[in-house]
């Protein structure tokens, strides 16, 4: 198995006006090729920070991390990953099609190649027919799908997703989770996915990383026994509930909710 992301005793301390805040404390973790890894934990546990370190949007203050054997900065310059943010962050003056084209324009692809990739990725997220719509003409779920299409458009093997469905209602979220699994099976990408929903983490992941706050650290890493093929009603099975229970135990062991 090829290791895509490898973190060793990774630490990050933010200097704030109220003194230093330790966001990550000695996090050691490997993400292998083709895995779907979820990061779960309460606010302040460092799950988003860890994703941002992989993306070279934050600089660690201790330890080591490599992405495909490179530093995060090299990986970013090489466009090794696509990043999906909490908000869709579509540019309001661009149509869906032009938003998906944004990274392709920056990479300097030919118009024909851009067009090819736009139609292919919009089809993957079921947005064919919405090419000419502006973001404000789409629902929240559609906007987030467009932003996923944008992250897929330049064909990076690693997809970093930071609570992409956090702002959506439960029904839309279930639907998008199922679509995401399909997409993952089809594209064989490696996905790192931040969430604070236990069912979402268990349903999606092959590996669940449970984190706890103050300082942000890993309390448990669970390899999911669930098959890769997952219909939505797998969430009623004893195996699913068992994994969910272990996640909940892991969260409790981290005393994550004790002082909230």
């Amino acid at each position, binding site marked *: 198995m090829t290791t895509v992301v490898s973190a060793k005793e990774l630490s990050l301390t933010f200097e704030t006006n109220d003194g230093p805040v330790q966001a990550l404390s000695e996090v050691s973790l490997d993400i292998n090729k083709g895995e779907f890894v979820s990061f779960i934990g309460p606010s302040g546990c460092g799950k988003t920070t860890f994703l941002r370190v992989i993306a070279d949007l934050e600089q660690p203050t201790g330890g080591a991390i490599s992405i495909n054997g490179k530093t995060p900065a090299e990986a970013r310059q090489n466009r090794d990953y696509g990043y999906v943010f*909490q908000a869709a962050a579509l540019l309001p003056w661009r149509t869906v099609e032009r938003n998906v084209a944004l990274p392709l324009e920056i990479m300097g692809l030919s118009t024909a190649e851009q067009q090819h990739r736009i139609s292919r990725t919009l089809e993957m997220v079921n947005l064919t027919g919405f090419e000419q719509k502006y973001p404000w003409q789409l629902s929240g779920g559609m906007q987030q799908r467009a932003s996923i299409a944008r992250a897929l458009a330049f064909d990076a093997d690693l997809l970093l997703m930071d609570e992409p469905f956090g702002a959506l209602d439960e029904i839309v979220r279930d639907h998008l989770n199922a679509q995401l699994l399909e997409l993952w099976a089809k594209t064989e990408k490696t996905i790192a996915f931040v969430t604070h929903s236990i069912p979402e983490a268990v349903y999606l992941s092959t590996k669940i990383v449970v984190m706890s706050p103050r300082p942000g650290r890993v309390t448990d890493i669970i390899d999911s026994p669930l098959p890769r093929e997952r219909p939505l009603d797998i969430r009623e099975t004893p195996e699913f509930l068992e994994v969910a229970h272990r996640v909940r135990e892991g969260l409790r062991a981290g005393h994550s909710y004790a002082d909230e």
Partner: protein
Amino acid sequence: MIARLWHGNTLPVLIVVAAILVFWYAMAVHMNSPWQERMNARAELENVPFTEFASQTWAQAKPLLPAPHQILGEVWKATIEEEITSRRSLAYHSWITLSATLLGFAFGTLLGIGLAVAIIHNEASDRSLMPWIIASQTVPILAIAPMVVVGLGAVGVTGMVPKALISMYLSFFPVVVGMVKGLRSPEQIQLDLMATYNANDWQIFTKLRWPSAIPFLFASMRVGIAISLIGAVVGELSNAAGGGLGVRLLTGSYNGQTIQIWAALLLAAALAATLVALVGVAEKIVLRRMGVAT
């Protein structure tokens, strides 16, 4: 039609206009009556009925406060009835002012955008330029304008350019302030997004910062074009030979031609309102083409 009148802006505006006109005519009677009384006494007119006295105060050649119909009559006479090339034509003077305004506004907008770009891309220029830009606007323009016009005149630069420079001096300011804010308006999440694409500064500027700043640019330009006109008029006050609405104000006050002053004032105000409205129209068109206005 009636409903539209009732719910829209039209009725309130008409009511305000009517109130202003009533007040204006009343003030004209009040302010012009001392002179009219003296005239009537000299002509040995006695017991003039009030209606006749009022219409006398509204028909003086050099009233303290001209009545609205006198001003409109003067505007009509001086724009429509005069040859457009004549120095007595208000249209001719308006064009002189308008051309300097537009040139100064164009320069000012470009200068403002250029400074804003320098400020957001370079911390040193942020700290060194901004205090000077603000200081530049605390200097009274009435003191600077004659120096610019006379100084440039001494080295042979006359006509439109000195006035345009004063317009530029006034109009670049709102553009700098607006554009610095506009170019810094993209959210952190959008900047992070560009970072994940490894976009360079130029790509971030053209694809993110500039489009984000467009609404700020138009807001600044609305202010900028109105003060450009003021700059041009102030510039004209220092060069009576050059023509323009400012010169009409100046010669009107020398000769006590109050109607002429008010006519020039009215035209300057109408010109400014038209220019601001045109910027608004351009804004609507551009934002609609960008897809951000519904």
